[in-house]
């Protein structure tokens, strides 16, 4: 991404600006991030992220789980996942409290897809990791701390 576009994306927002950019040839229609929830991925704190997702204040639920090991040998690749036994789960997301932007990834699950998704994320430091789940239109959450450890030779 060139710096020009980076800057406009940083400062600008909204459909009007995007169409202007498209008209100017800076972005082509195919690459306009129509669905990508920019506000949610740009949010810094947990609270702002949840707000941008429209999750309000999720209820802690023992039927939601952050899956994966408690210790990461390296923060560049941390295996994490979300799983839930709640009914009618339509969305799950992974949030990392101490990352510069809390939201790592979100997944929309059509009917028939199980509430069990695994991926790998970067973590700058030891942090609480949250699994967010939308079930029957309501948001639920679970958390666990994942410890990021340093390696031997130190870089």
């Amino acid at each position: 991404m060139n710096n020009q576009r980076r800057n406009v994306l940083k400062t600008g927002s909204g459909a009007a600006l995007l169409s202007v950019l498209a008209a100017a040839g800076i972005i082509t229609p195919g690459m306009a991030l129509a669905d990508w929830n920019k506000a949610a991925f740009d949010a810094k704190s947990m609270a702002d992220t949840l707000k941008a997702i429209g999750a309000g204040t999720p209820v802690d639920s023992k039927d939601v789980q952050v899956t994966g090991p408690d210790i990461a040998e390296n923060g560049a690749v941390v295996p994490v996942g979300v799983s839930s036994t709640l009914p009618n789960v339509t969305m799950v997301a992974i949030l990392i409290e101490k990352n510069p932007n809390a939201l790592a990834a979100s997944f929309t699950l059509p009917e028939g897809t199980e509430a069990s998704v695994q991926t790998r994320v970067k973590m700058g430091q030891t942090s609480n990791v949250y699994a967010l789940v939308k079930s029957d239109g309501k948001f639920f959450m679970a958390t666990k701390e994942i410890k990021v450890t340093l390696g031997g030779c130190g870089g």
Partner: protein
Amino acid sequence: MANPMKIRAANKEGVTEVKVLISHEMETGQRKDSAGALVPGWFITELTAKHNDKVVLSSEFGPSVSKNPYLAFKFKGGAKGDKIVVSWKDNKGETRTDEAAIG
């Protein structure tokens, strides 16, 4: 051009598990190069998986998904030989689509 994905899909007792490995830099936009200049962000933003023509997963990634992303999920249905198609798009507008048969 982006390198192909590696897609594995296996059906077990009516549930298909899909595992995807993607070749992508996933540059955060917050890293500095050796000269101290900020390296621009370059990461996958969206990923969709289809079983035959039905969407079975749509995902949005931020830059904190690891380099060479890995993804695993499960859906009901799907039979041996059915087609799984995975597509991604990054913030530079680059896209890539690969497919695999359920084994």
